[in-house]
């Protein structure tokens, strides 16, 4: 089971509480926004109390940190509002401190929050994927480049793009009087947090400042509206495609089936290939890891996805 559908949830309605996870220093508080019951991946609003200090260290999960108010120092550098860090699993960051306090969002994408004090990267860390940017000062708004695209007036700054999964993290804003009259769903899960402003969706009503959602794939959302403008941060777990329509009453199964039907028409050759001769666990030649036989849902021509493989033993040379 992955994360449940949490929508809408407004973190302003609940108090911060002390973050007591083993390994983390004292002085951090949190509000849980969503959590994967299986692997512990989660998204939290966090508050670093004035004087918070964290030694150099790493996490076992990839995580992202976005600073909303106040500032933190990492090493010698001060990072104020809009600062964004993408920290791959096992990558060590320098000592982090918040002399005057700060609030932010922490996204642990593939495992529960963890902190291991360390001066050096884990042997399996991918240091080249580390990124840090100030999204407010160093980046400009652009139109979305999806096709089909959201209506004019929804602008983005892409903070991180995963070249394998096409998952991405982005700031987005809706201009005052933004509106989009259709219903959308995606093949990916998405989550978003309102840093400032209120927007409206036909299913869920108003989402104000501090509003959050974690939305699994194929769930209808929209029409959309925003009277005074909104600034938000969003994240997907894989490629985002806007499946637009105007039927308010379709459910997940119908939406997923429609998406599959569309793949059949858009990529007929690939669709046929995947569905024949047990080709449903293909290998990407660009990646030499992450695909051992049996690590992805697949079948052997009999349609039975629920089966397991024994661990393959390496032959002795």
């Amino acid at each position, binding site marked *: 089971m992955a994360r*449940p*559908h*949490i*929508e*809408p*949830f407004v973190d302003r309605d609940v108090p911060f509480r002390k973050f*007591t*996870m*083993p390994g983390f220093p004292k002085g951090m508080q949190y509000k*849980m926004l*969503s*959590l994967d*019951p299986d*692997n*512990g991946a*989660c998204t939290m609003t966090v508050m670093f109390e004035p004087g918070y200090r964290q030694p150099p260290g790493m996490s*076992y*999960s*990839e995580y992202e940190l976005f600073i909303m108010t106040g500032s933190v120092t990492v090493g010698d550098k001060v990072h104020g509002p809009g600062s964004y860090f993408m920290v*791959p*699993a*096992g990558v060590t960051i320098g000592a982090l401190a918040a002399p005057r306090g700060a609030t932010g969002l922490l996204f642990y*994408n*593939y*495992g*529960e929050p*963890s902190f291991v004090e360390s001066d050096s990267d*884990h042997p*399996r*860390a*991918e240091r080249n994927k580390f990124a840090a940017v100030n999204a407010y000062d160093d980046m400009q708004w652009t*139109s979305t480049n999806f*096709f*089909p*695209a*959201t*209506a*004019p007036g929804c602008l983005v700054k892409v903070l991180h793009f995963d070249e394998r999964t096409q998952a991405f993290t982005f700031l987005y804003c809706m201009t005052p009087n933004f509106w*989009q*009259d*259709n219903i959308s769903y995606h093949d990916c899960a998405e989550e978003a947090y309102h840093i400032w402003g209120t927007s409206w969706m*036909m*299913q*869920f*009503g108003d989402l104000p400042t501090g509003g959050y959602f974690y939305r*699994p794939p194929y*769930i*209808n959302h929209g*029409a959309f509206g925003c009277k005074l403008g909104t600034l938000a941060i969003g994240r997907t777990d894989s490629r985002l495609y806007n499946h*637009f329509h*105007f*039927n*308010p*009453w379709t*459910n*997940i199964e119908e939406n997923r089936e429609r998406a599959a039907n569309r793949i059949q028409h858009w990529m007929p050759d690939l669709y046929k290939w995947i569905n024949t001769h047990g080709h449903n666990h293909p290998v990407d030649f660009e990646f030499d*890891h992450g695909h051992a036989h049996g690590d992805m849902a697949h079948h052997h021509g009999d349609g039975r996805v629920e089966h397991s493989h024994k661990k393959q033993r390496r032959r002795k040379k």
Partner: protein
Amino acid sequence: MKSIPHKRSREVEAWLKREITEQKARYRKIVAEQDALAPKRDKWVAEFLQRIQTRGTHVHFNMMRKVGPEEIPVRPKRKFRVVF
């Protein structure tokens, strides 16, 4: 490498268990709140279905098309769920 295999301590397992329990309660509260919103939502849907016939529905960016009355979907008899 998205995550590095490691062993969870008992304290971490207990923390996760507590958070999962609280999330279940949060989910139930959201479902109840969204169920209570149903009358308003029905009104919003009726207005939306009217607008897409007069002003149009977005198909891409600023491209819109008007939906004909014969295209308007019929509400199914099942419960209208928005939280899944």
